[in-house]
């Protein structure tokens, strides 16, 4: 979805330190566009903070976005900053409602770049159905940032049927992935300096809250756990789950089937070429669900009819056989442990 929002006429076209001073320039920047663009009654008070009327169980999360480059095929840092926090709330079983929005801008960022980010934030917030109710803008000297950093925090109301926690994961549960993995990471990789390769890959950044809400409406407590495998990819999240549950009365491990993992052919090819394992590559518009075995097939069938769920698949199961570990059965039937990465995944020599 593209929003047609012409940039307001301004008497500056580059962000300078003054725009973060809190003085006239800051006001010009905010009033010229930010407040108008993101308009809602709570933001319109222009107060130091937003006053929210909340009742019931509430989820609260925060995340910082420092992606390089900030504009990439299929999205911008702005969309990530909204979708990422919205998705974190959705993974708690919450219905996202309010976001805060803080910028750290590097001196020299052009106003047109900043505007493009703002517009993408607006579009993403509308799509997710959340309001941006408070925020902040700081400017740092050139060389002290990477054009633009964003922090968002989010508040969501817990879905009445949601009962999501790692403690509810049971042996026999099925592991489901909502879409093709590793697409976002490889799309970013394709435009990183020094690594550029030609591809039509687009980031899969998307708000997952509407899809998750429908699933919670229909499957409620049969959904035991939801996680979005962003940094570190699917392998990292699964290892975290297995490690968290390597204590207590029922220790569990996770089995996954390589042949069931949905990966776009182009992504698999790029990973192969660069010596990366798609299991460790970042995702944005994908979630993992661990659900009771008896609903798994219906769950996947339903998910495939919902936005961003077309490629959903059952990729594994929860087991007591190798507690604390994630074990992959390869396409050819061999088995190996999928371990936690030590640091960033580094390309191999040959």
């Amino acid at each position, binding site marked *: 979805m593209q929003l047609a929002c012409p940039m307001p006429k301004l008497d500056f076209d580059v962000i300078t330190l003054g725009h973060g001073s809190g003085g006239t320039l800051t006001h010009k920047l905010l009033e010229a566009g930010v407040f108008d663009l993101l308009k809602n009654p709570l933001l319109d008070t222009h107060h130091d903070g937003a006053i929210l009327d909340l009742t019931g169980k509430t989820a609260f999360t925060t995340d910082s976005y420092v992606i390089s480059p900030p504009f990439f095929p299929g999205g911008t840092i702005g969309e990530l900053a909204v979708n990422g926090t919205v998705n974190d709330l959705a993974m708690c079983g919450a219905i996202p409602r309010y976001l805060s929005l803080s910028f750290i801008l590097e001196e020299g960022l052009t106003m047109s770049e900043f505007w493009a980010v703002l517009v993408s934030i607006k579009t993403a917030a509308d799509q997710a159905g959340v309001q941006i109710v408070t925020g902040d803008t700081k400017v740092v000297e050139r060389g002290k940032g990477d054009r633009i950093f964003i922090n968002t925090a989010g508040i969501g109301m817990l879905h009445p049927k949601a009962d999501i926690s790692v403690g509810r994961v049971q042996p026999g549960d099925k592991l489901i992935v909502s879409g093709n993995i590793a697409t976002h990471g490889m799309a970013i990789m394709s435009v990183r300096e020094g690594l550029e390769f030609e591809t039509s890959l687009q980031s899969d950044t998307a708000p997952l809250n509407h899809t998750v809400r429908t699933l919670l409406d229909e499957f409620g407590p049969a959904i035991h756990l939801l996680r979005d495998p962003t940094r570190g990819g699917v392998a990292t999240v699964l290892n975290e789950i297995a490690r968290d549950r390597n204590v207590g009365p029922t220790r569990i491990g996770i089995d996954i089937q390589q042949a069931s993992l949905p990966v776009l052919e182009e992504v698999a090819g790029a990973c192969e070429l660069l010596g990366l394992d798609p299991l460790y590559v970042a995702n944005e518009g994908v979630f993992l669900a661990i659900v009771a075995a008896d609903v798994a097939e219906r769950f996947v069938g339903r998910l495939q009819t919902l936005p961003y769920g077309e490629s959903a698949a059952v990729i594994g199961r929860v087991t007591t056989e190798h507690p604390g570990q994630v074990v992959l059965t390869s396409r050819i039937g*061999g088995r190996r442990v999928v371990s936690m990465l030590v640091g960033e995944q580094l390309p191999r*020599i040959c």
Partner: protein
Amino acid sequence: MKHLSEYRDPEQVEQYVQEIHRTVTRPWTIMEVCGGQTHSLVKNGILNLLPESVTMVHGPGCPVCVTPVNLIDKAVYLAEEKGVMLCSFGDMIRVPGSGKSLLEAKAGGADVRILYSPLEAVRLARDNPDREVVFFAVGFETTAPANALSVVQAHQLGLTNYSILASHVLVPPAMEAVMNDPDTNIQAFLAAGHVCTIMGTGEYAPLAERYRLPIVVTGFEPVDLLHGILMTIRQLERGEHKLENQYTRVVRAEGNPDARRVIDQVFEVVDREWRGIGTIPRSGWEVRRELASFDANRKFSVSIAKVPECPDCIAGLVLKGIRKPNECTQFGTRCNPERPLGAPMVSSEGACAAYYHFSSALSDCVE
């Protein structure tokens, strides 16, 4: 990608696995030389498809693992003290030197860049004429042509700010070193397919003859590896010892003449130190004397003190296949990928790291 699925076909894999099980009548110990093959064996879970009596030993063919600590120290020194733009393949930058790794030097402000091709480094040198650009040219025969070509290109462009820190190693002398060790129990080799793509197979027939063992040039996909293992076992069972080529779709007997020409143009054979093994005569390449201005070793006078290897690390025994990684007392305890004591724990192609990552505590999955 069609190409890939063809060589990962579960049915064909199953056929080879069954044929191997039918053919084997007694225990055999086979070394796969190349780290890429080790990686594929563990990543695809091939080891636990083989009969128990077939032992695969992971050889010294991981370039990251055998690069001497001293040379990493040198790279770190160039990046930190000489202010060069130090370019490297990705997996080299985490390998600890005696003090720190290139990754740590980068975090401290040194200009360290991960590249996929040395030609990219030549471009950086061209675009940054006021900077010295050094490419950390690590690898076996496979990566040598591209590294050599970067020197040729820089020469043609008249660049005076480009050089390579070469740590090239050669496979056949390493195989000899393994066989010359009196403790070795290796009975056959899978030779490294991509090395032979460049160099051809000519060097291997004399080795098979001299040491009286089968050598099968093998590819990297599951079907290739199992086919190569089957060919090796057939020879072993029949008491044969010859050179065979499993990887015929890629490897020609004469190799790649163009690539060999560019290698000859830039490199000459020298004695080379291998981390964990020691110096092997005529086992490496360095930049020819007449191209000294492209040789970072000669261009920058750096003398780095040699540091002894950690005495508890049995890397040498592992690289020669005399011990298995998990037979080391330090394995997984004091030595792990976060704090490796020795080289094979560092790269994902290293035998110890492969065992650690893909098999920790799941012994039935590897052995």
